């Protein structure tokens, strides 16, 4: 009886039961799980991110351990890294470092990272990370808008990709060279704000004191 009923039963089960989905697989490697999540949505499970209190905060500026230089002197001399297909080629102990160990500035002036927890690799990709000026880089301005921005901002154009993700500090003098409009707008707005409060704060405080010490305001 089994001999006749088992094959059709198996066929029925194959037809009716759902296919084993990749999502049901046990991940043996956290690395592969990370990579698949990164490539799909950019959304992380709660246990995959740091706790809320420290989320988005970088302590990369403080160096721990032996205090490696950002780039060893010889390395800096030998290569012009902004045109390499592997921008980190030959860096000492590269595998042991986190991105923010060297690129703390880039993480801090970056609302994609601070507010939305977008990681470096979600835009810059996997090893080897080409310099963004390299012809094959996904961040080359030829294809940045389609290959990087449009992953989340559907319909991003060339102009959209001109948004400075690694925003220069608008208060610093160096910004005047890089983004003059930002620098001027920032300082004009600061001047308006400071001027308003320089005038009205003492005015209001003195006014309050005057009324406090006067029985009645006015002509009588």
């Amino acid at each position, binding site marked *: 009886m089994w001999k006749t009923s088992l094959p059709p039963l198996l066929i029925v089960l194959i037809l009716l039961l759902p296919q084993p989905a990749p999502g049901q697989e046990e991940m043996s490697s956290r690395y592969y799980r990370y990579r698949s999540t990164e490539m799909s949505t950019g959304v992380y499970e709660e246990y995959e991110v740091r706790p*809320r*209190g420290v*989320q*988005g*905060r970088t302590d990369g500026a403080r160096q721990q351990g032996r205090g490696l230089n950002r780039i060893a002197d010889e390395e800096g001399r030998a290569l012009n890294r902004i045109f390499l297909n592997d921008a980190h080629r030959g860096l000492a102990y590269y595998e042991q470092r986190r991105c923010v160990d060297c690129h703390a500035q880039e993480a*801090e*002036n970056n609302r994609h990272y*601070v*507010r939305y927890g977008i990681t470096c690799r979600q835009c810059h990709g996997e090893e080897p990370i080409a310099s963004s000026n390299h012809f094959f880089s996904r961040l080359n301005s030829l294809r940045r808008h389609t290959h990087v921005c449009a992953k989340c*901002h559907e*319909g*991003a*154009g060339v*102009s*959209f*990709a*001109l*948004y*400075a993700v690694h*925003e220069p500090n*608008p208060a610093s003098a160096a910004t005047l060279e890089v*983004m003059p*409009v*930002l620098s001027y*707008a*920032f300082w004009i*707005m*600061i001047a*308006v*704000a400071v001027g*308003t*409060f320089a005038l*009205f*704060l003492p*005015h*209001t405080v*003195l*006014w*309050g004191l*005057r*009324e*406090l010490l*006067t029985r*009645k*305001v*006015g*002509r*009588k």
Partner: protein
Amino acid sequence: MTTSAKTRIKRFTPMQRLFHLTLMLTFLIQSATGLARMYHETGWGQGLANLFGGFSGALTIHIAVGIFMVCAFVVHLAYAIFLLSRRGMVAGLRGPDSLIPGPGDIREFISHLRWILGLSAHPPLDRWGYWEKFDYWAVFWGMIILGGTGLLLATPLASSQVIPGWGLNVAFWVHRIEAILAMAHIFIIHFFVVHLRRSHFPMDSAMFDGSTDLETARNERSAWVDRLTASGELGTRLTVAPPAHKKIIHLITGLGAVAIGLFLLVGSLMHATRITW
């Protein structure tokens, strides 16, 4: 005519009070949702955002209320143009009932400052003091700056077709600094002038009642009362005090706004060093 009961003088029309109430409520929502996002790295900001459905919910509300504010501003412009067309386009901009600042306001500012320092008598103010004109035009300018940059930032894909993408970096900082200026001005200076001055403590409720006490006005804004007396308009402007229950509602509304404003002010000052600017 029971003149004894009519102790108050009309200062704001119901339309003006409605504009102020709308602005007050939307401004507080925009402050809370904006600060919730700005301070999202701190527990304080996260708690604030939770009131509005979290980090992204706060943005949804911020944008929706922002668009409503821009619409209300357009309605206000239409209202101002309507008033001007009734009074005459050029004549309506002049005179003591106009909010357009003039050289007289600088003179008034200096004489008021002299009174503050005890150097001269209190100047006879008219219907609008110089600080009230400043407040009006500060909001006017703020609506244009914040509304303009806000609309750019709310639709980055569309706006980057009009301006280069880095213009959004600029718009972000202009929006942020103007918002901080507006909140600090309202939560410190406006609240102080309206609530904490001895002559009006605990609250100058003219903007809610629509009327202000005639005796107080006679002292503080003598030029206005004298002008109305001379033109014989004073009788038509006198009114009775609002009923007690309305006064209580107005007081609670005003002091509630103060409480929310101070909560936002103190919280954001306390956590200012804990966020990425």
